[in-house]
């Protein structure tokens, strides 16, 4: 255990990076009051694009850039259809989740099952030498370091900048924000696009690093839905969302460990393990957000700590169509 621990922990941290990108991207989007349900398809289509571009050009950087752009474009479809045409966000997101997956399989057909470039492993000098911590956190690739920075960047943006404040206003009470002179539609649109960009990066992280290559299935199927659930799990707060991503990555790693022990059970059975857990955590969180429990928590110290950790307030206008008048 002791010798293996840093290795497993490093796998958990590296494997969580795409989930961190996708879930934080979605957090930005949802804080502005728009729910981008297309994540599952977005991740696959951008994974395919990232791999194909990196393969054609030989540049991993261009792969990531193109994947981000694809994610941003899909998010732009969601944002513009709901902002300008008032289409239901759930409907459009769900259709895109299915369609982009099919599009990825269709366009990615010539690139399936071939060797392609991968993101290089770049340990950080000095920091990698720190015992245990160095091995876990600083012997990774550059995008994993990017994911650490993103967690604090999103936190700083949402709570410490003027733009973050305006975005949160637009998500909580768009009508009031509009009257105060905040360009609600522009904000919602551009931050949905930015969130989509990070989702796209997550896709490329799968096909260029975590599950390298392309194929049908790629292996990233279903992660988009997990990322959406993680945002709820984290209560729309970037630090907690990131912790949720690490928790799920840990569970996936545990699945692999368990699979070695029970080799007669097919791998797919363990792969579904995060989903009942997702339902269970949502149930648990919702229970702690009930009024009775919140009132009890005022006097009971244990409940108080638990409810503070699990408290989640969705942006008030989440998923609703904004009417300017």
């Amino acid at each position, binding site marked *: 255990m002791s010798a293996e621990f840093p290795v497993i922990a490093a796998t958990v941290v590296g494997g969580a990076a795409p989930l961190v990108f996708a879930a934080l991207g979605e957090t930005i989007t949802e804080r502005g009051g728009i729910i981008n*349900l297309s994540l599952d398809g977005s991740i696959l289509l951008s994974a395919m694009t990232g791999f194909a571009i990196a393969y054609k050009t030989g540049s991993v950087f261009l792969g990531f850039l193109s994947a981000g752009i694809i994610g941003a474009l899909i998010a732009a*479809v969601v944002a513009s*259809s709901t902002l300008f*045409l*008032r*289409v*239901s966000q*759930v*409907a*459009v997101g*769900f*259709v*895109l989740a*299915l*369609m982009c*997956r*099919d*599009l990825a*399989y*269709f*366009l*990615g*057909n010539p690139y399936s099952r071939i060797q392609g470039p991968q993101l290089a492993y770049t340990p950080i000098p000095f920091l990698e030498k720190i015992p245990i911590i160095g091995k876990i956190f600083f012997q990774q690739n550059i995008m994993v370091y990017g994911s650490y920075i993103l967690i604090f960047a999103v936190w700083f943006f949402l709570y410490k900048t003027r733009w973050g404040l305006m975005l949160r206003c637009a998500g909580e009470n768009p009508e009031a924000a509009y009257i105060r002179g905040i360009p609600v539609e522009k904000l919602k649109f551009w931050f949905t696009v930015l969130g989509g960009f990070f989702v796209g990066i997550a896709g490329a992280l799968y096909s260029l690093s975590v599950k390298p290559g392309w194929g*049908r299935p790629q292996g990233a199927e*279903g992660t988009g*839905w997990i990322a*959406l*659930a993680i945002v*709820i799990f984290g209560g729309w707060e970037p630090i907690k969302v990131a912790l949720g991503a690490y928790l799920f990555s840990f569970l996936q790693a545990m699945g692999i460990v368990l699979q070695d022990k029970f080799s*007669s*059970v*097919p791998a*797919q*059975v363990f*792969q*579904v*393990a995060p*989903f*009942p857990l*997702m*339902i269970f955590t*949502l*149930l648990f969180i*919702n*229970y702690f*957000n*009930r009024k009775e429990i919140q009132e009890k928590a005022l006097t009971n110290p244990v409940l108080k700590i638990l409810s503070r950790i699990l408290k989640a307030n969705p942006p008030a206008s989440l998923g609703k169509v904004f009417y300017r008048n």
Partner: protein
Amino acid sequence: MKDKVLKPITRWFIVIGSVFVIITLLLYAIKVNPFEVYKLLIEGSLGSKYRIARVLNVWIPLVLCSCGLLYTFSLGLWNIGIEGQIMLGAIGATAAFKWFYPSFPSLYVMVLGFLFAIIAGGLWALFAGILKTKGGVNEIFAGLGLNFVAQGLILWLIFGPWKRPGIASMSGTEPFNRHLWLSTLKGFRVSPVALAIAVSVFIATVFIFKYTKWGLFFKAIGDNPTAGTLFGISVNKYSLFAMFLAGACAGIAGFFQTAGVYHRLIPAISSNYGYLALLIVMLANFSYWPVPFIAFFFACLNVGSIQLPMVLNIDSSLSGIIQGLSVLVFLCVYNFQKLKENSLE
């Protein structure tokens, strides 16, 4: 009055036209002759009696699931869990076949399998409904989670308790005894019973929505949940009821998939038909009369695209792109028309 006819016609004209143009351009872009693809899609689905039978075998579960979804959508519920409800129906049917044959005559076992499928699918949906009404878990996430759980359950059954004697494999359980296969017409491999039940479920759905008090309640609550509470209608009770009905319809679809099409339990028993049915009902704009026609079109696409990889070396997911794109364009055009109408008033 003139508007009522003209608008849907323009809408459909725009939808079909733009989907056609976009797909044609897409196919040119990957250097495939689009008209060869269209020819293959049409011939592959309607070209022979054998192929039409296959289309009908897809049409049956699609119509059944769409009917179920009409109930949940009329209450504003997104029953994405329908995919897993089909799987549970299939598991229920297989369980009955495994447990009661050959100790009971095959006809009884068939009926039991049918009932088991309805109950298993219905309860699985009810579970998602209870998570929503009692647990506050959004039905989209509850349903999705349960879909993955159902998939895991099927895999576990195939590789565990119900594995083929000797080797367990992804090809599924051992085929059922011939007596447990739904009989089909000679030279036309569609079960007339399945067809009859699908059609009657559709007629029953139309009847319920059009002529009964239930239908009225479903509509009233869906349009305005608070109004329902004011008139003493329990929204939660109706939500659970609608979920059960949807699950039961999906369960029937699962029964026909096992007893009528595959004659065993396989991992891909639901074949994505639940998700497809969601698209069908959206494209039907949540009303019942276009459902059988759209389901037929979607079934043709699914069956026609099977040959694409072999003949033209392109992925069969093209059918999914056409289906998704149709719904996407439809949603945009429909809402654009509504927006223009509102601004004129």
